[in-house]
């Protein structure tokens, strides 16, 4: 029988939750990397045993971890346990080294971006927010980082090179950090076109490349953000997350700071689909595995009050690609609930019926085995959840 593996990143370690296809009984392993912030971990679509994890700390910086056995054991790529240096005495691993590309041959040297007070500020690497493994090669993986940049490894995470055309394409000096930092948090690899990648940055907006990452352009037409000097600016929108259905990679759904948005032309233009949501502020957004017009969000009261309206934790589902939303509450707390659901903390499996999962800052991970009709907590007392990903296992 097929099964699922839920990969949970938290503020104090990673957890791996596994179940069979019924998704009723769960095994919980962890904490892996106890005490460290795990911003994200994700499995390779072509090798489910291959997982990548972003482990970081304000004290000790960024660590990349890799598992080749589905999360049972982990190593830093290039530095196997028990092995130390090359015969020449040089360290084997460069897996934690994220250095912005300042070479003249790749377009732009290290530039500056806008700081909170409007002054210019140099790029400073802080952490990896999101790891996106290639859909075709388990050794190729992309990393979205803070301060915003996109890196790629083609050797299983041993070495990382920046795709510098993004940071240096011209609008960088107008990018600015959101409250969580200037993070590149969304990386979507078009499953039908290996040259096309979408990314999103808080607070700069969404961008697209059609040449494998050499050149980029902003795709923010139609976004309207009243909290920036020019609400319709090309750059400066606080995009929280973007999702697609793999059968229709030109259709994008976005949860912006405020507003739920949709594009039907690969981001060339957007229109609002917030419809009857009780509030259109939020962080997560995802798409049903089998129904491209069925999408999920978790409305949050406001940018100043990061918790659900009325203390009721409600997932909202639209079966019409937006505008018409229904509240999903069965099994979710409907009083005194003041958790948040962060931008990378929702995922779907591809079983039938589609499973939907999300984690909260209060340490709960909820699962629905019926596309959101009902929910059950898998775990209730983890550290604050930063990310949730799901693998559907053969």
């Amino acid at each position, binding site marked *: 029988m097929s099964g699922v593996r839920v990969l949970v990143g938290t503020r104090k370690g990673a957890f791996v939750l596994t179940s069979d296809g019924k998704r009723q009984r769960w095994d919980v392993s962890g904490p892996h990397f106890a005490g460290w912030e795990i911003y994200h971990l994700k499995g390779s679509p072509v090798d489910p045993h291959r997982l990548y994890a972003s482990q970081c700390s*304000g*004290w000790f910086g960024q660590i990349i971890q890799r598992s080749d056995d589905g999360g049972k054991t982990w190593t830093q790529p290039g530095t196997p346990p028990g092995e130390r240096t090359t015969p020449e005495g*040089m*360290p*084997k*691993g460069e897996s*934690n*080294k994220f*250095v912005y590309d300042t070479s003249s041959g790749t377009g732009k040297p290290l530039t500056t971006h806008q700081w909170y007070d409007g002054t210019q500020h140099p790029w400073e690497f802080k952490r990896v927010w999101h790891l996106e493994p290639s859909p075709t090669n388990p050794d190729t993986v992309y990393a979205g980082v803070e301060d915003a940049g996109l890196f790629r490894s083609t050797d299983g995470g041993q070495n990382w090179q920046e795709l510098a055309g993004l940071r240096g394409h011209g609008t960088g000096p107008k990018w600015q950090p959101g409250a969580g930092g200037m993070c590149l948090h969304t990386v979507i690899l078009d499953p039908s076109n290996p040259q096309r990648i979408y990314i999103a940055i808080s607070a700069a907006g969404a961008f697209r490349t059609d040449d494998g990452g050499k050149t980029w352009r902003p795709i923010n037409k139609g976004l309207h953000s009243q909290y920036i000097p020019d609400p319709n600016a090309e750059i400066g929108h606080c995009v929280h997350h973007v999702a697609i259905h793999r059968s229709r990679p030109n259709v994008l759904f976005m949860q912006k700071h405020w507003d739920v948005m949709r594009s039907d032309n690969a981001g060339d233009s957007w229109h609002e689909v917030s419809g009857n949501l009780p509030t259109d502020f939020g962080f997560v957004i995802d798409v049903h595995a089998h129904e491209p017009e069925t999408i999920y969000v978790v409305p949050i009261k406001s940018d100043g009050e990061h918790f659900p309206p009325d203390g009721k934790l409600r997932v909202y589902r639209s079966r019409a690609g937006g505008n018409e939303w229904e509240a999903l509450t069965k099994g979710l707390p409907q009083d005194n609930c003041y958790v948040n659901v962060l931008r990378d903390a929702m995922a779907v499996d591809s079983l039938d019926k589609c499973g939907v999962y999300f984690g909260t800052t209060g340490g709960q991970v909820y699962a629905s085995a019926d596309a959101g009709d009902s929910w059950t907590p898998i775990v209730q007392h983890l550290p604050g959840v930063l990310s949730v990903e799901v693998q559907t296992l053969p």
Partner: protein
Amino acid sequence: MIRVVLPGHLRALARVSAEVQIDVKGPVTQRSVLDALEAQYPMLRGTIRDHVTHERRPFLRFFACEEDYSLEPPDAPLPESVASGAEPLLIIGAIAGG
């Protein structure tokens, strides 16, 4: 042998249980000790000092013989008792919550 005491998280990362002992060739300084430490435990590269600039990470400090050496130049000699192995070099994380 030079003795180095690591913070708990870095012990876990390097898979060592207590203080580590390393060989240092030439003068015993912050730089030579950290170079040798990273060569022996490459998983620690970037965790104590920046990958490129080799500047100490801001939330870490270096102590030896009850003295703070964090702000000393990286090529300044460490105390003789550290060089002789009588005392360890302590790498300590700031008490900053967590």
